[in-house]
């Protein structure tokens, strides 16, 4: 990963021509930010600058496909973290069914492709000057920008989770990383006979089946190591949001008597010292507490004027993933206002990324974009260390409604969780990681 020096050069120059790059410091002339989209040869694609904010499933996949499909593009990826840690399969880490190292990757291949990877925090995108502003004060000029910042937690309604000490005592672990390991430690330290109490926010949130997969994983761990313990699932939703039949089969089958599921649980707060989830009508004490907060688009989206729906999500044009609010800025992944029955998933962020990459190349080359795009979703959930089940759907563009809707007759659930699909799930993971970083 490159680090910026004061003269705006990078300490490790990627293969691509960096002389054209307009790297502007605060206060410097913005003249260099003017658009250039002269045409290179058809194979090389258009010459222009694309800056991608966020190197997760959406952003890294978009940067990589832009560069592979249009090598003449000048692509920069800005990411705050040094490594990529996959949320998918991170619930298995909680149960000891996978190691975090299996899910942790580097950005080196993207640099080898000629993408400039900058480690930094983006403050905002300034569409009037077509620049991306970093916390360091540096600015990067772009012809088109992509934002895939994932989610941030909305803690306004959960005062008991706001202090850093409270967060350490009750790790959320809804972004894979240090909190995943801390939650694992708390589970390991819990005596047999204890209770893991989790709260699920109202949909939409990142990964609809994820919380129920987590309940299964922790039940799997308890069954093996702490068989007198319980998993209590407090759901703000009126019912299991995704893959209900698969999860109910596990809770009424191998985990019978271990998992207690309660719908319609409106959260009031959480009390760390008392280890209690406070519901509007009830207090639920436990030994390990895991409140998954409500979510909205990552903060940089709001600071860039991209949030258009419920003060949470970014409305986009489904032909291009371009923001409906800010021209020239495309939004991917969890941060988008999801179309009907479109989950906030890594698969979907990956699909958004390729749709956006193709559209951006067409737009920069002044060609019409694909008028009839299709996206698919595939999400696997593990019910134990080996068996998984899926939910799938195919989404097609509806010109009349200007949205994506599920193609009638497509998609569905696994009949039951099974080991074959457990292997498919690991295969999916290795390939989607390769799509982002390979």
């Amino acid at each position, binding site marked *: 990963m490159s680090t910026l020096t004061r003269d705006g050069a990078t300490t490790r120059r990627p293969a691509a021509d960096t002389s054209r790059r307009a790297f502007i410091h605060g206060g410097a002339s913005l003249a260099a930010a003017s658009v250039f989209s002269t045409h290179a040869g058809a194979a090389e694609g258009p010459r222009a600058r694309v800056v991608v904010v966020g190197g997760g499933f959406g952003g890294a996949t978009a940067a990589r496909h832009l560069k592979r499909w249009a090598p003449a593009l000048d692509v920069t990826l800005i990411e705050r973290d040094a490594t*990529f840690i996959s949320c998918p399969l991170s619930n298995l880490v909680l149960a000891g069914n996978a190691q975090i190292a299996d899910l942790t*990757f*580097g950005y080196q291949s993207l640099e080898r492709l000629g993408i400039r990877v900058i480690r930094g925090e983006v403050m905002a995108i300034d569409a009037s000057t077509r620049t991306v502003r970093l916390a360091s004060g540096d600015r990067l000029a772009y012809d088109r920008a992509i934002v895939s910042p994932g989610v941030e937690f909305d803690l306004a309604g959960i005062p008991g989770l706001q202090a850093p000490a409270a967060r350490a005592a009750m790790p959320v672990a809804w972004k894979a990383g240090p909190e995943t390991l801390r939650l694992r430690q708390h589970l390991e330290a819990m005596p047999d006979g204890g209770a893991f109490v989790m709260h699920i926010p109202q949909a939409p949130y990142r990964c609809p089946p994820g919380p129920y997969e987590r309940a299964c994983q922790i039940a799997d761990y308890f069954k093996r190591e702490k068989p007198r313990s319980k998993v209590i699932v407090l759901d703000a939703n009126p019912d299991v949001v995704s893959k209900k039949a698969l999860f109910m089969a596990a809770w009424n089958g191998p985990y019978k008597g271990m998992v207690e599921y309660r719908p319609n649980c409106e959260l009031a707060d959480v009390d760390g010292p008392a280890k209690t989830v406070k519901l509007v009508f009830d207090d639920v004490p436990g030994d390990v507490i895991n409140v998954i907060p409500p979510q909205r688009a990552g903060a940089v989206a709001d600071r860039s004027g991209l949030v258009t729906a419920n003060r949470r999500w970014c409305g986009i044009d489904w032909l291009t993933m371009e923001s409906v609010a800010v021209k020239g800025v495309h939004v991917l992944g969890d941060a988008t206002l999801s179309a009907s029955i479109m989950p906030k998933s890594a698969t979907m962020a990956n699909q958004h990324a390729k749709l956006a990459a193709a559209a951006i190349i067409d737009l920069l080359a002044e060609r019409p974009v694909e008028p009839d795009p299709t996206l698919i979703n595939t999400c696997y959930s593990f019910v134990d260390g080996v068996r998984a089940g899926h939910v799938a759907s195919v989404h097609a563009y509806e010109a009349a409604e200007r949205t994506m809707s599920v193609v009638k007759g497509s998609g569905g659930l696994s009949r039951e969780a099974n080991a074959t699909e457990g292997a498919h799930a*690991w*295969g999916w993971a*290795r*390939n989607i990681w*390769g*799509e982002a970083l390979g």
Partner: protein
Amino acid sequence: MTVISHRIPRHSRRVGLLLVAICFVAGQAAADDVSRARGLAANCTTCHGSDGRSVGEVPPSLAGRDRAELLQTLLDYRAGQRASMIMEQHARGYSEAQLALIAGWFSRLPAGVALAAPRADGSSTGARQP
């Protein structure tokens, strides 16, 4: 000195122009098909690997497979005549014409080494089964 176009009868000039126009339209249609095929095939690569080359054994690689065999497999999934965990559910989301573009796209890609994400230290994770 003769100007070449004067030697070409008017009607054949028109035919020539028409041919140029047809070639242009056909070329444009082919280009549209290529970009449409790439877009559709990009739906598949999330699970099957970039350029249809899978890092592991499952899901299988698609690059370099026989076009007719790939298309028949997809059509069979779509018609519910081939059992699968997930492929019937996906294939039913596409028209026959779309499936033909997908099969054509992958059949033209060379089979080869899959691209795996590197470990944090940059070392290869290729084909590792955790």
